[in-house]
């Protein structure tokens, strides 16, 4: 890097050649462009790129391309962004402006009159008991209200209720062994104490399989027909993320499959929701559930994400595409997953029958069919996810009951 400048990918030396500092400045700018496009090209990666260029030819655009791609990217999704940025940056154009602003309006946390009176010291004429009862029952009513018909203030209150849900999953037996009071003999530890005691067997150590939370995969339908519920369901997904960040995966489906796991990792619900809605390109579009499910299984599910997991699909089953494909993919999903749960907000409506094409095709391959239209229904969904942990013995019977519908 002695006094050589940077060449563009098409060999145009439009940037002045003044030395190593210049290469670093150029690359820093490039990394910034990448970050703006959503590639996590932090300083450490940038440093690796400069180190890589040390071993390659800085003047050869192909070498620069590969040095950057190998060090700055860390995910197949990064690669198309990288290619775009590389072409734009080194041909002198500026980076594409950021994504369009999010289409959804996220209601900030507001003090709700219904609960605000909870601890208020009202020593007025009216008996305080009444206020309390009113408040309690208002929340109770709100719990059961369909989220699609809520005012912003009520919605904020429901969001708060959802954020409090514990959606941790049931435990499964892990392959990893851990010391335990009984189980198979832990030879290594037994011999270790034996050596310490000078060859006397004083006690036997045991180890047993550790128990780990099962993975949960949530597929949230964000198409037009689900618009009233998508926000609440994504908030539920966020609550699930917080209950078990390492075992939860979240995707949005509509006309495109979007992985939201990293977006929802933020602890503050509103910030996580902003990040998620930024990432979803197909809010309120159509539904191609069968195709999306296929894409999920091809790219993630079959490789292992769905294997042995609890897969929750939150959708109304309005399939615009081929319902046959949906049925086929549901069968495939059911073979891979531990349990398949379907949450359909319309299920709670009086007289609901699962008659939509998608629902009919999917129903034979579902273990649990729940509603998920209100805070209370989402609490039930959380319970279904954690079924074995919380109410162990009667899973089979309970499941059948739910399948038969409300």
């Amino acid at each position, binding site marked *: 890097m002695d006094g050589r400048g940077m060449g563009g990918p098409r060999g145009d030396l439009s940037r002045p050649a003044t030395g190593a500092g210049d290469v670093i400045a150029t690359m820093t700018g490039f990394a910034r462009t990448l970050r703006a496009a959503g590639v996590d090209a932090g300083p450490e990666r940038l440093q690796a790129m400069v180190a890589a260029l040390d071993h*390659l030819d800085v003047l050869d655009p192909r070498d620069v391309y590969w040095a950057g791609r190998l060090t700055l990217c860390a995910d197949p999704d990064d690669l198309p962004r990288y290619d775009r940025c590389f072409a734009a940056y080194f041909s002198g154009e500026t980076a594409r402006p950021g994504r369009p602003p999010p289409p959804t309006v996220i209601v900030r946390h507001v003090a709700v009159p219904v609960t605000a009176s909870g601890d208020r010291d009202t020593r007025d004429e009216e008996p305080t008991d009444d206020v309390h009862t009113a408040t309690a029952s208002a929340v109770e009513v709100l719990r059961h209200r369909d989220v699609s018909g809520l005012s912003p203030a009520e919605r904020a209150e429901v969001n708060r209720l959802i954020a409090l849900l514990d959606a941790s999953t049931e435990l499964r037996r892990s*392959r*990893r062994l851990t010391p335990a009071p009984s189980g198979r003999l832990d030879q290594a530890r037994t011999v270790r104490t034996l050596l310490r005691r000078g060859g006397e067997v004083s006690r036997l150590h045991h180890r047993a399989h550790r128990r*780990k939370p099962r993975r949960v995969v949530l597929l949230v339908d964000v198409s037009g027909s689900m618009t009233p519920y998508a926000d609440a369901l994504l908030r539920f997904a966020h609550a699930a993320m917080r209950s078990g960040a390492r075992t939860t995966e979240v995707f949005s489906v509509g006309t495109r499959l979007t992985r939201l796991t990293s977006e929802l990792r933020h602890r503050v619900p509103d910030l996580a929701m902003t990040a998620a809605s930024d990432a979803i390109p197909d809010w309120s579009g159509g539904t191609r559930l069968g195709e999306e499910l296929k894409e999920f299984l091809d790219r993630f599910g079959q490789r292992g994400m769905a294997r042995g997991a609890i897969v929750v699909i939150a959708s109304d089953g309005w399939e615009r595409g081929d319902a046959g494909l949906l049925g086929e993919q549901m069968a495939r999903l059911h073979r891979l997953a531990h349990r398949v749960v379907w949450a359909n907000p319309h299920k709670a409506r009086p007289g609901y029958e699962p008659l939509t094409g998608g629902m009919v095709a999917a129903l034979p391959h579902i273990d649990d069919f729940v509603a998920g239209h209100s805070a209370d229904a989402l609490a039930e969904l959380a319970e279904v996810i954690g079924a074995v942990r919380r109410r162990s013995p009667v899973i089979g019977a309970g499941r059948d009951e739910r399948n038969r519908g409300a």
Partner: protein
Amino acid sequence: MTQNAATRTDDINSPRGLADHLARRAYLADEGLAAAAYLALRMRRPLFLEGEAGVGKTALARTLAEVLGAPLIRLQCYEGLDATQALYDWDFPRQLLHLRAAEAAGATDVARLEAELYDRRFLLARPLLQALETTPSVLLVDEVDRADDEFEAFLLEVLSDFTISIPELGTIHAEEPPVVVVTSNRTREVHDALKRRCLYHWLEHPSFDREVAIIRRRLPDATERLARQVARAAQRLRGEDLLKPPGVAETLDWTEALLTLGLRDLEPDTVAVTLGAVLKYREDQERVVRRGLDALLDGN
């Protein structure tokens, strides 16, 4: 393997040079993979390879080991893998035997006896420790996504400074860090911190011409005509909507199956009998048969 002696890292001075060395061992790397492997050698950074099953991730590590004349040390990951299986373990039965033998011989110096128990000879080196102690060596950490995250954190520790500390023995540091190839099938997202330590490369299926070249190179008995037919059929199968599209590994298996059966031409009936070498799901086979095997072949 004997036609070229082992190559020193310093003798390889460009990605193309490395690609030539690999090609001489029947591994045809494209520009990106050659650059990745070259940088992994020169920068002493682990190479993190992702891609569909059967695109040659493991084969790259094997061939690199051949080029460098270094042993390939493989650590296959699985859930529950822990330090005693990946790093080192004490040989307890032997330690015990030593203790009893010393007792029988009437040893009285307790301190010395204890020191002897934790001698290097009672240490069983597992792949990671082996790789640090063997210079040069190529360490293949295969399918890291199958191990659980606890193991990942631990791997990160070893890969970041190539040092292992054993409480009873002290710190073992690699004189020259091994060449490390980490592969993943993306069954789960590997932690960012581990990726940050590595060079990242996504391996694609090879192009038609490259695949023909690979078949010809790996199976010299295959005629140009057969190689082209098989490669074209494989490319078409990848375009189909299959549960498991065939990788290069499957293409090679297929060609070998055809050659073993003495078939010199790909025709619908020869495809039918050998389809199991390339498609491993019943649904996939049915789908291809239903579409008609002729569709895989025309244009040859």
